């Protein structure tokens, strides 16, 4: 990706200078903070607490000021990396692709996919990439949604945060018309029991469990839908195979939702993508490999799921 791309090389060379400056300043800041702590500890050990505390505190404050002063520049550097470097990488793949670092998929839309049962107490989203592949518009963004639990202990309330979803959410215009909601979730013991219960005894939900003919598919996903026929209209035998193929690329099982004439796919990923390195050089030729791989993967979904075939009365 970097090799042979003059635009990218120029931008990287320019940003590398910024990075070196930021890295040096940050090192200096951390050094003074470490020094301050060391002086305080040494002072206490040697029986000179007051002068050591004064000297240590001065060093700590200086270190903090140094870090604070560079923080704006760091932010600008990270933003420039996303817009200029990732932006150039996106353009070289397809002219229509753009990245907006401070935008994402809104919490409202995230909850609307109905993929996750819990409501988020803390929700972060960034790095919205959008564009078109052939006839199909799509976008994806990083999302981290968490819920909290509070436990009363002797020392007061203990708050713990748990992930609802961390990874990339992908959305694209679907190539068939549909009105209802169809949800595919990873199959686990809990969801299997729930599905058996609602199918054989009683269901509280407005969605039915859909039994599909593809056994590999039914082993991987539990499918719920508001409309049995529509779910099968979306999940044709070919589509089920394509979704299984897509799922092979990721470690954890993906979730899919078909709603509002869109397809949403949630990829659980632990890495934070499109972040500029501070203490590693930008001149590494493998620098963008992971980021480019994820972009290409998302771009290829359209082809993989055959969303550009528009022969079903939807343009």
């Amino acid at each position, binding site marked *: 990706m970097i090799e042979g791309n003059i635009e990218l090389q120029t931008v990287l060379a320019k940003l590398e200078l910024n990075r070196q400056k930021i890295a040096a300043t940050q090192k200096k800041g951390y050094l003074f903070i470490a020094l301050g702590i060391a002086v305080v500890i040494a002072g206490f050990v040697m029986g000179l607490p007051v002068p050591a505390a004064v000297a240590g505190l001065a060093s700590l404050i200086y270190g903090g000021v140094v870090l604070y002063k560079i923080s704006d520049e760091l932010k600008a550097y990270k933003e420039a990396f996303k817009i200029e470097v990732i932006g150039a990488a996106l353009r070289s793949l397809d002219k229509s692709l753009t990245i907006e670092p401070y935008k994402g998929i809104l919490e409202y839309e995230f909850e609307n996919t109905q993929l996750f049962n819990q409501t988020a107490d803390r929700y972060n989203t960034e790095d919205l990439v959008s564009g078109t592949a052939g006839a199909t518009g799509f976008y994806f963004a990083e999302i981290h949604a968490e819920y909290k639990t509070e436990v009363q202990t002797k020392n007061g309330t203990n708050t713990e945060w748990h992930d609802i979803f961390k990874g990339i959410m992908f959305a694209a215009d679907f190539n*068939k*018309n549909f009105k209802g909601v169809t949800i595919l979730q990873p199959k686990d013991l809990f969801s299997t029991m729930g599905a058996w219960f609602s*199918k*054989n*005894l*009683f269901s509280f939900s407005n969605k039915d469990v*859909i*039994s*599909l*003919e593809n056994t590999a598919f039914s082993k991987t996903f539990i499918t719920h839908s508001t409309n*049995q*026929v*529509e*779910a*099968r*209209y979306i999940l*044709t035998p070919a589509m089920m195979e394509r979704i299984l193929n897509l799922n092979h690329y990721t470690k954890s099982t993906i979730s899919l939702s078909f709603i509002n004439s869109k397809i949403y796919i949630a990829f659980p990923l632990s890495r934070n993508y499109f972040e500029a390195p501070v203490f590693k050089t930008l001149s590494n030729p493998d620098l963008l490999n992971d980021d480019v791989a994820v972009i290409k993967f998302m771009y290829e979904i359209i082809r993989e799921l055959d969303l550009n075939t*528009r*022969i*079903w*009365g939807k343009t």
Partner: protein
Amino acid sequence: MFALIIIGVLLVIAIFFYNSLVGKKNQVTNAFSAIDVMLKKRFDLIPNLVEVVKQYTNYEQATLSKIVELRSKAVSGNISDSEKASIDAQLSGSIKGLMVNVENYPDLKANTNFINLQSTWTESEEQIAAARRTYNSAVTDYNNAIMMFPGNMFAGILNFQPMVVLTTAEEERKNVSAKDLFNS
């Protein structure tokens, strides 16, 4: 007291199983009517399709009139479900052949009306396929329920019989050859 509770629990379970069995049977009927609805939708496309094709082509009149004839037979109402299915299979074959033959008529191929009809036809084809799969899945669910314990006890009492799943008609499995269709 203990015995009463056990009887109560058993009764509740029995009610649930009975209801779920009846529910499954109704689901089969429901799924079948979904196929019917989709078929009707498809049959309704035929007059328009034939009209548009007539405007641009002057032969295959025989095929076109055969299609119209089949269609009117299908919507006449006094035919059995299996007859309807067989008419649909024949119609599908004829229309598929027609679509292949359209390649020879660039004007027709470029007609917006025809393009719309063509995509609606493809749409309806997949919708019918989906409805048939839904029906088969409902039948499988129902058959499983009446053959497995404890459903088989109720099925025996209520005289619920296993049902047959739909299989693809022989004509649909074959690749349609336009030549065969129009030369017949």
